[in-house]
Structure formats: structure tokens, C-alpha cells
């Protein structure tokens, strides 16, 4: 929690999430009471009116929130329910299975190449997350802390490069990777390269974080006898836990759910699929849907569970990163 001192000007979302105060419904009315000393009766009346109004507003909000929660959760509940459905047709017109069972999960692991896809995805995500972390930290720390000739030019260049649609580069990258033998069945290495190579361009959130660490810490350390590298790993890195976790988490989630690049690189060779491409393929044609719909649901559940658990534990860091990123632009 030592970051707390440093980040005074950061939005303290997480802290405040946790420190929700006990509610004081009357607090809105206090100044009303204080200013209105003359008419006791009317004050009572208005007091009651305000209270009723507040309650009505709150009830409306509760209703909206409950409906919203339902809308947000329903598709996921449906997926889970249907993954346990044994009657394997697509168009049912009902949600709750008539016959429950683990058939879909069994078929997912035996009849499809799901285990292979899952392993592919896992390896890619873990390796990409670690390398991407290093790239992003290098880039963002340098741009935040070090001043050198060409810094502004580098940032502008990356800004301009970011305006080209990423899809555009895929064609040539595919051919380069194909020539290097890193596509189709061997897509793991190729995909890692694609995810990782340009990840330095995603430095914004991380730089925003480093910018909030007072520069005088670096200066103090340098006066105390540290060189630039020592400043980084003795002073800055120990303070960067939130951004390290945020970067790892997003870098992991990206490949975990990526469809476009993965489908491009794997190019119709099912050994090279990741879970997204594999599961999409399961329901990609009308005949496939009819046969595999419930298996897709089972696959979806298995893919979603680890990432959701991870996310729940690290939510705090994610929220910090997202908010900080938006504020810093």
C-alpha cells in the first residue's frame, strides 16, 4: 500500500470502493434544517416531503439496477445452463435443460481438439503477457522519466502509427511469418511474435502511472549515488506493483480472447487454433451450429472461468489502470 502516498492526485477509486461510509439519509437535509429556523411546521412538512422524494428516487434506482444486473448476467447464465443441456439441438425455444448432464463437456474434450486449443491459448497468453510487460515497462518508463533527443518525435511517430488500422499489417505479417514457418500448425510462436513485437506502442496507461510518481524520488536516488538502472529497479519498480499487475492482466486477456490475428495466422489448420478461433469454428456454419451449439457453450464456460477468477482477484488493479488511463488520456 505504499503507493498510496505517491498517488495522491490519482483517482482513488479502489480505496473509496472499500471505504463506503454508512449511509446517512438525513445528511441531505441538514442544511435545510439549519437555515430554516422560523417555520417549524412547514419544516416538518418539507422534511417529510424530501424524505419521501429521496426514497422514491432510490427505489427507482434500485429497480433500474436490478433490471440492469439481470440484463448483464442473463446471457452468461444462459451459457452455463445450456452447457449442461443433453438434448443437443440449437433451436429450442427454452433455456432450462430438460435433461441435465456433463455430455457436452465430455464431447468437448474427446470429439474436438479443444485441449490442444486450450493449451495453445494458455502458452501464448502467458508468454505474451510476460514479454509484453517488459516491452511496455521499458517504453513507458523511458518516456516518462528519461529526457533525450528525439523523445517527442518518437511519441509522435507512435501516435501516427497507431492511426493505421492494425488489420492492414496482418497481410504482410502473415507472409513473413509463413516464410519463417510460424503459421498454421506452428502458430504459437508466430502469434506470440505478433502480439508482443509492437506492444511498446501501448505505453500510455503505464506512462500515466509513472508520471504520478514524483520525479524527486529519482533525483534523490541519483544524488544518493544510484545510476539510472538502479533508480529503475531499486526505487521505481518496487512502487509499480499496480501497473505491473494491470499490464500483465490486460496482456494476458488480449491473446486469451483474440480472434482476428489468431484466425489469420492459424489459417484453417485446426492444430494452430486458439480457443476463440476453435470455438467460433464450432458454430461457424448452420450445420455446425446444429451439432455443436451446446458444446460451444461448454467451451465458453471453461474458457471464461479461469479468466473471470483471475479478474476477480485482480479487479482492483484493473480498475485503477482503466481509470488512470482514461484520466491521463
Amino acid at each position, binding site marked *: 500500500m*505504499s*503507493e*498510496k*502516498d*505517491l498517488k495522491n492526485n490519482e483517482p482513488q477509486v479502489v480505496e473509496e470502493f472499500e471505504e463506503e461510509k454508512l449511509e446517512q439519509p438525513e445528511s441531505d437535509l441538514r442544511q435545510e434544517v439549519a437555515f430554516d429556523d422560523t417555520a417549524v411546521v412547514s419544516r416538518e412538512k418539507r422534511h417529510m416531503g424530501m424524505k419521501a422524494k429521496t426514497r422514491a428516487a432510490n427505489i427507482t434506482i434500485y429497480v433500474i439496477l436490478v433490471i440492469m444486473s439481470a440484463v448483464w448476467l442473463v446471457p452468461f447464465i444462459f451459457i452455463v445452463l445450456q452447457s449442461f443441456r443433453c438434448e443437443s439441438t440449437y433451436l429450442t425455444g427454452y433455456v432450462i435443460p430438460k435433461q441435465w448432464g456433463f455430455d457436452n463437456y465430455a464431447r468437448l474434450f474427446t470429439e474436438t481438439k479443444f485441449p490442444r486449443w486450450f493449451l495453445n491459448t494458455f502458452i501464448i497468453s502467458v508468454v505474451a503477457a510476460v514479454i509484453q510487460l517488459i516491452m511496455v515497462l521499458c517504453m513507458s518508463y523511458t518516456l516518462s522519466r528519461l529526457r533525450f533527443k528525439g523523445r517527442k518525435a518518437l511519441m509522435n511517430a507512435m501516435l501516427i502509427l497507431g492511426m493505421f488500422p492494425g488489420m492492414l499489417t496482418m497481410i504482410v505479417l502473415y507472409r513473413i511469418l509463413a516464410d519463417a514457418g510460424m503459421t498454421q500448425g506452428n502458430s504459437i510462436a508466430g502469434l506470440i511474435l505478433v502480439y508482443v513485437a509492437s506492444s511498446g506502442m501501448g505505453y500510455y496507461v503505464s506512462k500515466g502511472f509513472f508520471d504520478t510518481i*514524483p520525479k*524527486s*524520488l529519482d*533525483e*534523490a*536516488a*541519483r*544524488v*544518493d*549515488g*544510484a*545510476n539510472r538502472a*538502479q533508480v529503475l529497479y*531499486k*526505487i521505481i519498480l*518496487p*512502487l509499480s506493483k499496480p501497473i505491473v499487475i494491470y499490464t500483465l492482466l490486460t496482456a494476458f486477456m488480449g491473446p486469451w480472447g483474440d480472434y482476428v490475428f489468431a484466425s489469420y495466422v492459424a489459417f484453417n489448420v485446426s492444430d494452430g487454433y486458439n480457443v476463440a478461433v476453435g470455438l467460433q469454428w464450432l458454430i461457424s456454419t448452420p450445420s455446425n451450429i446444429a451439432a455443436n451449439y451446446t458444446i460451444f457453450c461448454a467451451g465458453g464456460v471453461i474458457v471464461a472461468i479461469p479468466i473471470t477468477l483471475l479478474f476477480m482477484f485482480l479487479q482492483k488493479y484493473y480498475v485503477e489502470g482503466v481509470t488512470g488511463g482514461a484520466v491521463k488520456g
Partner: protein
Amino acid sequence: MANVKLTNVKKIYQGNVVAVHDFNLDIADKEFIVFVGPSGCGKSTTLRMIAGLEEISEGTIEFDGEVVNDLQPKDRKISMVFQNYALYPNYTVFENMAFPLRLIRPKMSQDEIYERVTKAAEILGITEYLTRKPRALSGGQRQRVAIGRAMVKDCKVFLMDEPLSNLDAKLRNQMRAEIILLRKKINTTFVYVTHDQTEAMTLGDRIVVMKDGYIMQVGTPTEVFDRPRNLFVAEFIGAPKMNTFKTNLVKKDGKYFVTPFGAEIPVTGQKADLLAENGIDSQEIILGVRPEHVVLADKPSKETIRVILQVNEMMGNELHLHLLTDDNTPLIVRVPTMNLTDEFRNELVMGKELYITFESKVMHFFDTVTEKSLLYIDKEEPVQEDEEEINAE
């Protein structure tokens, strides 16, 4: 322990903003020098150039004759205390203070590190906090840790960048006194930056008054207070600030008079001699009179000025009276309460008519255009050393 020499040091930021112009200064070994000036005057920039945190655009900085321009801060053998303390939040107080020692090569033994840190902690009275993290400390304690971290290592120059400005007034006075004591123990060259003239006056062996990147005056506290070289120094040093206004200097039969607001006040003593020495003739001038050199007169006369009391600030041992002359020039007077009768004090309310005059021996005269002193023209100090001034402090 080193003498520090700055020669024609200049700082130009990109976009041709000149932060420091042609800075020349020779700081003697073990001297305590204070850079003082309003914000944006280049004092911190100069300090940071000495530390190596800012690049030197032009000129050289030498420690003991060795040019250090191209040395990294870590190679300059300096210590520095920062305005916001800059304590490492992830380390305990002990580790914070041990940090500079752990970076020394060849490695220092753990015993010696322990020895040095605990000794410094003892001097500063923070031994009981050694195992705490900085965020568990109050502002004053953090300040001590920051000083402690700077003093554990042997350094040639000890730099302090507004170390007290984040403390509240009471703590600031206490820490100021401690720094004076500390200085005796550390016994090295100090460079201290502040915007507070009281700190500058009480701490410095010599003071460097700066404005807009230029040195306005260098001298001992007494020199800058008693013999300001220009209007800026005169107004900046001393509180409440010196009263300054345009008026005429008249030379009559070899005697000097000033004619503020219709009065005619003679100039006497050393100041008059200096005016004569410098060959000053009758001319328009800017007159400077410190609030303690304004005197309340009992009755109107040729030498007095009629004023109307605006605000009466009771400071305890003295009153600060804010006055307005007939042509709406504001003046401040400092009156010791000791000699005032209660009756008179009760009369001092807004709108009260008063008569004032100025001490004739201690007025300051400045050129209306250059704003330079008409008394102390040369760079050299006046020959006479004995002080004739009346000092209220």
C-alpha cells in the same frame, strides 16, 4: 568539504527561455550560502545545476578546482534534501537512510552502515522511527529523515532545496534552529535555497539574492539588509517590506534634504557623506525607508507628513500601522508597544490622523530609472565598517 566555483553559468531551456544568466559565485569551503528570491528567479535551477540534475547550458561549475559539468549526480559526492522530502515509500526509515551507503563501492559493511545510520538518527532524534515506513511519519519527522539520509554519507557539498517550505510556521522555526545546530556537526559546504528572507537572514553566512535569473546582490545578512545595492534587494529583504516611493532629493548649501509629501527631512550621517562622495546632485529619486525607521511625531512640523491610519495590526511586541498619505501612497510603520500608553493605543483606530517623519540617518536612495542604489555604487564594500544604523531588530 569543498569550495564551489560557478563561472559564467547559464541555463537556457529549449525555446530560448533563459532561466539563469551568467551566474558567477565563489563559495568558500565550509561556507553556508543561501540563494533567496521570489519563485521563478532561477535559484532552484542553479542549485540543481550544482547537483547535476539540470544540464549546464554554458559556463563551468568546479568543486575544488575540478570541473564537474559532465559528472553524473552520483559521481559528484553531494548530498541533497528535497522540498517534498523525496523519501522512498517502499523502504523503512532505516533503509531510506542507509540507501546512499549501500550504493558506495567498495561495499560498506553492514556494521558500519548501522553505526552511521543510528548515529545520524540519534542526532536528529528519530531513532524510535527507524523501523517505520515514511508514510507513518509526520511532516517534521519526514523532514528529519530526509536530512538524515543526506548526512550519513561524506559529501563535498550539502544542498538543500527549500527544505522547510512544506512545514507549518511553528515547525519551520524549530527546524531552522536545528539546521543551525546541525551545520556545526556536519561541517561541510552548504548551499541552501529558499524564498523566505527570514530563513536566508538567519541561516546564511552569505546570501545570494536573485531575480529573473540574475544575481541582484551577494553579501552577508548584514550587508544585504543595511546596504542594499538596488531597489529589489531593499524591498525583498526585511519584513514588513521597506516603504518606497518617488520623491525629490534636494542639495542645498552642501546639505541634502528629501521632500516627501511636502515635508522637508534632512539627510544626515554616513548616508549624507556617501551622497556627497558620489557627487549626487538634486534630482528625483526613489526613497526607501524601513517601517522601523518611520517615527510617529507628536505634533505637525516642517519635517512631518500628515497620514491617515487605515489598519492597525497588533503583533504583540509591536504594532504595524498601515497608513495612507494625502496623495494616497500607502506606508507601513512599525511601532514598539513598549513605550505606548494605553490611552494612545486605544486611539489608534481607522481614520485617525497621525504625523510621521523618517529617521534622517538611515534612508535609502535609488535611481528612478536604473533602480540602483545611489549610496553604494561600486561593487566593493564601503571602507568604513562601523555601523551607524539604528536597527530595530
